[in-house]
Protein backbone atom coordinates (compact mmCIF):
# COMPACT_ATOMS: atom_id res chain seq x y z
CA UNK A 1 0.00 0.00 0.00
CA UNK A 2 1.20 3.48 -0.87
CA UNK A 3 0.65 6.14 1.78
CA UNK A 4 -1.56 8.88 0.31
CA UNK A 5 0.20 11.75 2.05
CA UNK A 6 3.48 11.53 0.11
CA UNK A 7 2.03 9.96 -3.03
CA UNK A 8 3.44 10.80 -6.46
CA UNK A 9 2.11 9.52 -9.75
CA UNK A 10 4.45 7.35 -11.88
CA UNK A 11 4.39 9.72 -14.85
CA UNK A 12 4.70 12.79 -12.65
CA UNK A 13 7.70 11.34 -10.84
CA UNK A 14 9.47 10.67 -14.10
CA UNK A 15 8.63 13.76 -16.16
CA UNK A 16 7.31 16.56 -13.96
CA UNK A 17 8.51 19.08 -11.43
CA UNK A 18 6.50 17.66 -8.56
CA UNK A 19 7.92 20.18 -6.11
CA UNK A 20 5.81 22.98 -7.61
CA UNK A 21 2.65 20.92 -7.87
CA UNK A 22 -0.39 21.03 -7.39
CA UNK A 23 -1.14 22.88 -10.62
CA UNK A 24 -2.20 26.50 -10.77
CA UNK A 25 -5.27 25.43 -12.77
CA UNK A 26 -8.85 25.45 -11.53
CA UNK A 27 -10.35 22.16 -10.28
CA UNK A 28 -11.41 20.11 -13.31
CA UNK A 29 -9.45 22.12 -15.89
CA UNK A 30 -8.69 20.14 -19.03
CA UNK A 31 -5.13 21.41 -19.38
CA UNK A 32 -4.01 18.75 -16.92
CA UNK A 33 -5.46 16.11 -19.23
CA UNK A 34 -3.57 17.66 -22.17
CA UNK A 35 -0.37 17.48 -20.10
CA UNK A 36 -0.99 13.80 -19.52
CA UNK A 37 -1.60 13.23 -23.26
CA UNK A 38 1.75 14.81 -24.08
CA UNK A 39 3.60 12.86 -21.38
CA UNK A 40 2.03 9.53 -22.36
CA UNK A 41 2.87 10.18 -26.02
CA UNK A 42 6.51 10.75 -25.07
CA UNK A 43 6.52 7.72 -22.77
CA UNK A 44 5.65 5.64 -25.82
CA UNK A 45 8.08 7.46 -28.11
CA UNK A 46 10.92 6.73 -25.73
CA UNK A 47 13.56 8.54 -23.73
CA UNK A 48 15.60 9.50 -26.79
CA UNK A 49 12.83 11.63 -28.26
CA UNK A 50 12.13 13.18 -24.88
CA UNK A 51 15.78 14.15 -24.45
CA UNK A 52 15.79 16.24 -27.60
CA UNK A 53 12.49 18.00 -27.10
CA UNK A 54 12.06 21.68 -26.29
CA UNK A 55 8.73 23.17 -25.27
CA UNK A 56 7.68 26.70 -26.16
CA UNK A 57 4.56 28.33 -24.79
CA UNK A 58 2.86 31.68 -24.95
CA UNK A 59 0.72 33.58 -22.50
CA UNK A 60 -2.58 32.38 -21.13
CA UNK A 61 -3.69 29.48 -19.02
CA UNK A 62 -2.18 27.16 -21.63
CA UNK A 63 1.19 28.91 -21.24
CA UNK A 64 1.50 27.22 -17.85
CA UNK A 65 1.44 23.66 -19.17
CA UNK A 66 5.08 23.09 -20.27
CA UNK A 67 6.42 24.77 -17.15
CA UNK A 68 5.49 21.71 -15.12
CA UNK A 69 7.64 19.44 -17.29
CA UNK A 70 11.21 18.61 -16.31
CA UNK A 71 12.39 19.69 -19.75
CA UNK A 72 13.71 22.88 -21.36
CA UNK A 73 10.85 25.31 -21.87
CA UNK A 74 10.57 28.87 -23.14
CA UNK A 75 7.72 30.98 -21.81
CA UNK A 76 7.50 33.70 -24.41
CA UNK A 77 5.59 36.83 -25.38
CA UNK A 78 1.87 36.81 -25.97
CA UNK A 79 1.13 35.39 -29.42
CA UNK A 80 4.80 35.09 -30.36
CA UNK A 81 5.41 31.50 -29.30
CA UNK A 82 5.59 30.34 -32.92
CA UNK A 83 8.05 33.10 -33.82
CA UNK A 84 10.39 31.94 -31.05
CA UNK A 85 9.88 28.32 -32.07
CA UNK A 86 10.67 29.10 -35.71
CA UNK A 87 14.00 30.61 -34.72
CA UNK A 88 14.75 27.64 -32.48
CA UNK A 89 13.95 25.10 -35.17
CA UNK A 90 15.89 27.00 -37.84
CA UNK A 91 19.03 27.10 -35.72
CA UNK A 92 18.74 23.54 -34.34
CA UNK A 93 16.86 21.34 -36.83
CA UNK A 94 17.65 18.20 -34.81
CA UNK A 95 15.39 19.24 -31.93
CA UNK A 96 11.71 18.40 -31.55
CA UNK A 97 10.01 21.73 -30.96
CA UNK A 98 6.60 21.38 -29.32
CA UNK A 99 4.56 24.55 -28.95
CA UNK A 100 1.61 24.63 -26.57
CA UNK A 101 -0.69 27.54 -27.30
CA UNK A 102 -4.17 28.62 -26.42
CA UNK A 103 -6.78 29.79 -28.88
CA UNK A 104 -6.29 33.48 -28.18
CA UNK A 105 -2.55 33.03 -28.30
CA UNK A 106 -2.54 31.24 -31.65
CA UNK A 107 -5.54 32.61 -33.54
CA UNK A 108 -6.21 35.93 -31.82
CA UNK A 109 -3.01 37.88 -31.35
CA UNK A 110 -0.68 35.40 -33.06
CA UNK A 111 -2.79 34.52 -36.09
CA UNK A 112 -0.22 36.00 -38.43
CA UNK A 113 2.57 33.80 -37.08
CA UNK A 114 0.33 30.74 -37.26
CA UNK A 115 -0.54 31.01 -40.95
CA UNK A 116 3.03 31.84 -41.93
CA UNK A 117 4.48 28.95 -39.94
CA UNK A 118 2.02 26.72 -41.79
CA UNK A 119 2.95 28.30 -45.14
CA UNK A 120 6.66 27.67 -44.56
CA UNK A 121 5.88 24.12 -43.44
CA UNK A 122 8.51 24.29 -40.70
CA UNK A 123 8.82 21.19 -38.54
CA UNK A 124 7.05 22.39 -35.42
CA UNK A 125 4.40 20.51 -33.47
CA UNK A 126 1.73 23.01 -32.45
CA UNK A 127 -0.70 21.82 -29.80
CA UNK A 128 -3.52 24.34 -29.76
CA UNK A 129 -5.63 24.10 -26.62
CA UNK A 130 -9.01 25.64 -27.36
CA UNK A 131 -11.44 26.53 -24.62
CA UNK A 132 -13.60 28.94 -26.63
CA UNK A 133 -12.74 32.14 -24.73
CA UNK A 134 -9.96 34.06 -22.96
CA UNK A 135 -10.04 32.40 -19.60
CA UNK A 136 -6.96 33.83 -17.88
CA UNK A 137 -8.26 37.41 -18.02
CA UNK A 138 -11.83 36.61 -17.01
CA UNK A 139 -13.88 35.19 -19.85
CA UNK A 140 -13.72 37.58 -22.79
CA UNK A 141 -14.76 36.69 -26.33
CA UNK A 142 -12.08 35.00 -28.46
CA UNK A 143 -11.87 33.98 -32.16
CA UNK A 144 -13.22 30.52 -31.34
CA UNK A 145 -16.28 31.63 -29.34
CA UNK A 146 -19.35 30.08 -31.01
CA UNK A 147 -21.90 32.37 -32.64
CA UNK A 148 -24.58 33.55 -30.23
CA UNK A 149 -22.62 32.66 -27.07
CA UNK A 150 -22.75 35.01 -24.08
CA UNK A 151 -19.41 35.97 -22.58
CA UNK A 152 -18.11 38.80 -20.44
CA UNK A 153 -17.68 41.14 -23.41
CA UNK A 154 -20.66 39.92 -25.44
CA UNK A 155 -23.55 40.05 -22.94
CA UNK A 156 -26.19 40.07 -25.70
CA UNK A 157 -24.66 37.17 -27.58
CA UNK A 158 -21.68 36.95 -29.90
CA UNK A 159 -22.48 38.26 -33.41
CA UNK A 160 -19.22 37.11 -35.01
CA UNK A 161 -18.81 33.69 -36.59
CA UNK A 162 -15.94 31.65 -35.21
CA UNK A 163 -12.76 30.39 -36.86
CA UNK A 164 -12.53 26.94 -38.39
CA UNK A 165 -8.86 26.34 -37.67
CA UNK A 166 -8.56 23.16 -39.68
CA UNK A 167 -9.78 24.74 -42.93
CA UNK A 168 -7.61 27.80 -42.33
CA UNK A 169 -4.44 25.77 -41.86
CA UNK A 170 -5.26 23.42 -44.70
CA UNK A 171 -5.42 26.40 -47.03
CA UNK A 172 -2.26 27.89 -45.52
CA UNK A 173 -0.30 24.72 -46.24
CA UNK A 174 0.14 22.74 -43.02
CA UNK A 175 0.88 19.06 -43.53
CA UNK A 176 -0.58 17.35 -40.43
CA UNK A 177 -3.91 18.42 -38.94
CA UNK A 178 -6.11 16.86 -36.29
CA UNK A 179 -8.80 18.03 -33.94
CA UNK A 180 -9.84 16.21 -30.76
CA UNK A 181 -11.42 17.03 -27.45
CA UNK A 182 -10.20 16.03 -24.01
CA UNK A 183 -12.84 13.31 -24.08
CA UNK A 184 -10.98 11.61 -26.97
CA UNK A 185 -7.97 10.75 -24.88
CA UNK A 186 -6.32 7.88 -26.76
CA UNK A 187 -6.93 9.41 -30.18
CA UNK A 188 -5.38 12.72 -29.20
CA UNK A 189 -2.39 10.97 -27.65
CA UNK A 190 -1.81 8.98 -30.83
CA UNK A 191 -2.12 12.16 -32.88
CA UNK A 192 0.53 13.88 -30.75
CA UNK A 193 2.78 10.88 -31.24
CA UNK A 194 2.35 11.06 -35.00
CA UNK A 195 2.81 14.82 -35.06
CA UNK A 196 6.11 14.72 -33.17
CA UNK A 197 7.51 12.23 -35.68
CA UNK A 198 6.03 14.09 -38.65
CA UNK A 199 8.38 16.24 -40.76
CA UNK A 200 6.58 19.50 -41.43
CA UNK A 201 4.13 21.77 -39.66
CA UNK A 202 1.75 19.72 -37.54
CA UNK A 203 -1.16 21.30 -35.71
CA UNK A 204 -3.44 19.51 -33.25
CA UNK A 205 -6.41 21.40 -31.91
CA UNK A 206 -7.61 20.00 -28.60
CA UNK A 207 -10.89 21.37 -27.31
CA UNK A 208 -10.72 21.24 -23.53
CA UNK A 209 -13.09 22.04 -20.72
CA UNK A 210 -12.87 25.33 -18.81
CA UNK A 211 -15.54 24.88 -16.16
CA UNK A 212 -14.92 28.30 -14.63
CA UNK A 213 -15.67 30.47 -17.69
CA UNK A 214 -16.62 28.48 -20.79
CA UNK A 215 -18.75 26.20 -18.64
CA UNK A 216 -20.55 29.00 -16.85
CA UNK A 217 -20.95 31.45 -19.74
CA UNK A 218 -21.15 29.49 -22.99
CA UNK A 219 -22.46 26.02 -22.18
CA UNK A 220 -24.31 26.67 -18.89
CA UNK A 221 -22.53 23.66 -17.41
CA UNK A 222 -20.28 24.78 -14.56
CA UNK A 223 -19.41 21.19 -13.65
CA UNK A 224 -16.40 19.64 -15.47
CA UNK A 225 -18.20 16.29 -15.59
CA UNK A 226 -21.13 17.84 -17.44
CA UNK A 227 -18.75 19.53 -19.86
CA UNK A 228 -16.99 16.26 -20.72
CA UNK A 229 -20.41 14.65 -21.18
CA UNK A 230 -21.26 17.52 -23.55
CA UNK A 231 -18.08 16.87 -25.54
CA UNK A 232 -19.00 13.20 -25.74
CA UNK A 233 -22.50 13.93 -27.04
CA UNK A 234 -21.66 16.82 -29.36
CA UNK A 235 -18.54 15.65 -31.14
CA UNK A 236 -18.95 13.95 -34.51
CA UNK A 237 -16.20 11.95 -36.24
CA UNK A 238 -15.06 13.27 -39.59
CA UNK A 239 -16.34 10.31 -41.57
CA UNK A 240 -19.85 10.59 -40.13
CA UNK A 241 -19.94 14.36 -40.58
CA UNK A 242 -19.36 14.06 -44.35
CA UNK A 243 -22.87 12.76 -44.94
CA UNK A 244 -24.62 15.35 -42.79
CA UNK A 245 -26.09 18.70 -43.74
CA UNK A 246 -24.68 22.00 -42.39
CA UNK A 247 -27.82 22.52 -40.26
CA UNK A 248 -27.20 19.25 -38.43
CA UNK A 249 -23.56 20.13 -37.81
CA UNK A 250 -24.28 23.53 -36.26
CA UNK A 251 -22.86 23.77 -32.76
CA UNK A 252 -21.09 20.41 -33.02
CA UNK A 253 -17.38 19.68 -32.80
CA UNK A 254 -16.13 17.71 -35.79
CA UNK A 255 -13.24 15.58 -34.58
CA UNK A 256 -10.76 13.49 -36.47
CA UNK A 257 -7.52 13.46 -38.37
CA UNK A 258 -8.03 16.04 -41.11
CA UNK A 259 -4.86 15.91 -43.12
CA UNK A 260 -1.62 13.97 -43.40
CA UNK A 261 0.45 14.77 -46.46
CA UNK A 262 4.10 14.13 -47.16
CA UNK A 263 4.53 15.81 -50.55
CA UNK A 264 5.63 19.24 -49.28
CA UNK A 265 9.27 19.90 -48.38
CA UNK A 266 10.14 20.97 -44.86
CA UNK A 267 11.53 24.49 -44.28
CA UNK A 268 14.80 23.59 -42.52
CA UNK A 269 15.67 21.16 -45.32
CA UNK A 270 15.22 23.96 -47.85
CA UNK A 271 17.37 26.17 -45.63
CA UNK A 272 20.23 23.64 -45.55
CA UNK A 273 20.03 23.24 -49.33
CA UNK A 274 20.26 26.99 -49.76
CA UNK A 275 23.24 27.12 -47.42
CA UNK A 276 25.15 24.55 -49.43
CA UNK A 277 24.29 26.21 -52.70
CA UNK A 278 25.47 29.58 -51.42
CA UNK A 279 28.72 28.07 -50.11
CA UNK A 280 29.45 26.45 -53.46
CA UNK A 281 28.92 29.67 -55.38
CA UNK A 282 31.09 31.75 -53.06
CA UNK A 283 34.23 29.74 -53.74
Amino acid at each position, binding site marked *: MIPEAEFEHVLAKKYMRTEIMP*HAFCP*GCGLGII*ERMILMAFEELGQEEWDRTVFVSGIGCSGWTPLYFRRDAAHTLHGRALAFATALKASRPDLNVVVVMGDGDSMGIGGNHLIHAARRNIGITAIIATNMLYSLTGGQMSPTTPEGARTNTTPYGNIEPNFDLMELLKAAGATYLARWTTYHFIQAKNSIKKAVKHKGFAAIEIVFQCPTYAGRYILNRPDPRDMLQWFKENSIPLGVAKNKSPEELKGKIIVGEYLHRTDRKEYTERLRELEERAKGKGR
Partner: protein
Amino acid sequence: MASQVKVQQIAVSDKLCKGCYLCIWACPWDVLEISEERNWRGVKKPYAARIDQCRACRLCEWYCPDFALQVIVDEKEKRELLEVEEKYERPWLERVRKRDEIIKEGVWWLED
Protein backbone atom coordinates in the same frame (compact mmCIF):
# COMPACT_ATOMS: atom_id res chain seq x y z
CA MET B 1 -8.72 -3.39 -20.40
CA ALA B 2 -7.68 -6.18 -18.26
CA SER B 3 -9.97 -8.95 -17.26
CA GLN B 4 -8.73 -10.67 -14.15
CA VAL B 5 -6.24 -8.15 -12.87
CA LYS B 6 -6.49 -7.62 -9.14
CA VAL B 7 -6.26 -4.04 -7.99
CA GLN B 8 -4.48 -3.58 -4.70
CA GLN B 9 -5.25 0.05 -4.10
CA ILE B 10 -6.56 3.18 -5.82
CA ALA B 11 -4.28 5.81 -4.33
CA VAL B 12 -5.62 9.38 -4.23
CA SER B 13 -3.15 12.06 -3.22
CA ASP B 14 -3.96 14.34 -0.30
CA LYS B 15 -1.82 17.11 -1.70
CA LEU B 16 -2.92 17.07 -5.34
CA CYS B 17 -6.63 16.20 -5.37
CA LYS B 18 -8.83 19.24 -5.94
CA GLY B 19 -12.16 17.46 -5.86
CA CYS B 20 -13.41 17.79 -9.44
CA TYR B 21 -14.69 14.18 -9.38
CA LEU B 22 -13.91 13.53 -13.05
CA CYS B 23 -12.68 10.10 -11.90
CA ILE B 24 -16.15 9.23 -10.64
CA TRP B 25 -17.66 10.41 -13.93
CA ALA B 26 -15.15 8.35 -15.92
CA CYS B 27 -15.49 5.07 -14.00
CA PRO B 28 -17.73 2.63 -15.89
CA TRP B 29 -17.93 0.16 -12.98
CA ASP B 30 -19.03 2.48 -10.17
CA VAL B 31 -15.98 1.85 -8.02
CA LEU B 32 -15.27 5.29 -6.60
CA GLU B 33 -17.30 7.34 -4.20
CA ILE B 34 -16.97 10.71 -2.46
CA SER B 35 -15.80 10.42 1.14
CA GLU B 36 -17.76 12.04 3.97
CA GLU B 37 -14.86 13.76 5.68
CA ARG B 38 -12.78 16.64 4.43
CA ASN B 39 -8.99 16.29 4.42
CA TRP B 40 -6.54 18.96 5.60
CA ARG B 41 -6.93 20.86 2.31
CA GLY B 42 -10.69 20.98 2.68
CA VAL B 43 -11.38 18.54 -0.14
CA LYS B 44 -13.78 15.63 0.05
CA LYS B 45 -11.55 13.12 -1.71
CA PRO B 46 -12.90 10.20 -3.74
CA TYR B 47 -12.08 6.74 -2.42
CA ALA B 48 -12.43 3.19 -3.75
CA ALA B 49 -15.62 2.02 -2.11
CA ARG B 50 -16.12 -1.14 -4.20
CA ILE B 51 -12.59 -2.13 -5.14
CA ASP B 52 -13.59 -5.72 -6.00
CA GLN B 53 -15.44 -4.37 -9.06
CA CYS B 54 -12.38 -2.56 -10.40
CA ARG B 55 -11.05 -4.05 -13.64
CA ALA B 56 -8.02 -1.75 -13.96
CA CYS B 57 -9.20 0.02 -17.11
CA ARG B 58 -7.52 3.17 -15.75
CA LEU B 59 -10.05 5.62 -17.15
CA CYS B 60 -10.14 7.41 -13.79
CA GLU B 61 -6.37 7.79 -13.93
CA TRP B 62 -6.42 9.20 -17.46
CA TYR B 63 -9.16 11.74 -16.89
CA CYS B 64 -7.64 13.05 -13.64
CA PRO B 65 -6.20 16.46 -14.60
CA ASP B 66 -4.03 16.81 -11.52
CA PHE B 67 -2.05 13.53 -11.55
CA ALA B 68 -3.60 12.79 -8.17
CA LEU B 69 -4.87 9.28 -8.74
CA GLN B 70 -3.19 6.00 -9.53
CA VAL B 71 -4.48 2.46 -9.89
CA ILE B 72 -1.98 0.11 -8.27
CA VAL B 73 -2.19 -3.43 -9.59
CA ASP B 74 -1.35 -6.51 -7.56
CA GLU B 75 0.87 -8.51 -9.87
CA LYS B 76 0.93 -11.79 -7.94
CA GLU B 77 -2.74 -12.48 -7.37
CA LYS B 78 -5.71 -12.70 -9.71
CA ARG B 79 -9.13 -11.22 -9.08
CA GLU B 80 -12.06 -13.50 -8.36
CA LEU B 81 -14.83 -13.11 -10.91
CA LEU B 82 -18.14 -11.69 -9.76
CA GLU B 83 -21.29 -13.78 -10.15
CA VAL B 84 -22.61 -11.57 -12.93
CA GLU B 85 -19.38 -11.85 -14.84
CA GLU B 86 -19.38 -15.66 -14.62
CA LYS B 87 -22.89 -15.70 -16.00
CA TYR B 88 -22.75 -13.17 -18.80
CA GLU B 89 -19.19 -12.13 -19.53
CA ARG B 90 -17.35 -15.44 -19.85
CA PRO B 91 -16.96 -15.39 -23.67
CA TRP B 92 -15.92 -11.78 -23.56
CA LEU B 93 -13.28 -12.52 -20.94
CA GLU B 94 -11.80 -15.30 -23.03
CA ARG B 95 -11.44 -12.89 -25.89
CA VAL B 96 -9.88 -10.23 -23.73
CA ARG B 97 -7.32 -12.63 -22.24
CA LYS B 98 -5.53 -12.86 -25.57
CA ARG B 99 -5.21 -9.11 -25.69
CA ASP B 100 -3.86 -9.04 -22.15
CA GLU B 101 -0.91 -11.14 -23.18
CA ILE B 102 -0.09 -8.69 -25.95
CA ILE B 103 -0.40 -5.73 -23.63
CA LYS B 104 1.88 -7.34 -21.04
CA GLU B 105 4.84 -7.19 -23.39
CA GLY B 106 4.56 -3.50 -24.26
CA VAL B 107 3.73 -0.36 -22.33
CA TRP B 108 0.64 -1.09 -20.28
CA TRP B 109 -1.65 1.41 -22.01
CA LEU B 110 -0.50 0.56 -25.54
CA GLU B 111 -3.37 -0.83 -27.59
CA ASP B 112 -3.08 -3.63 -30.16
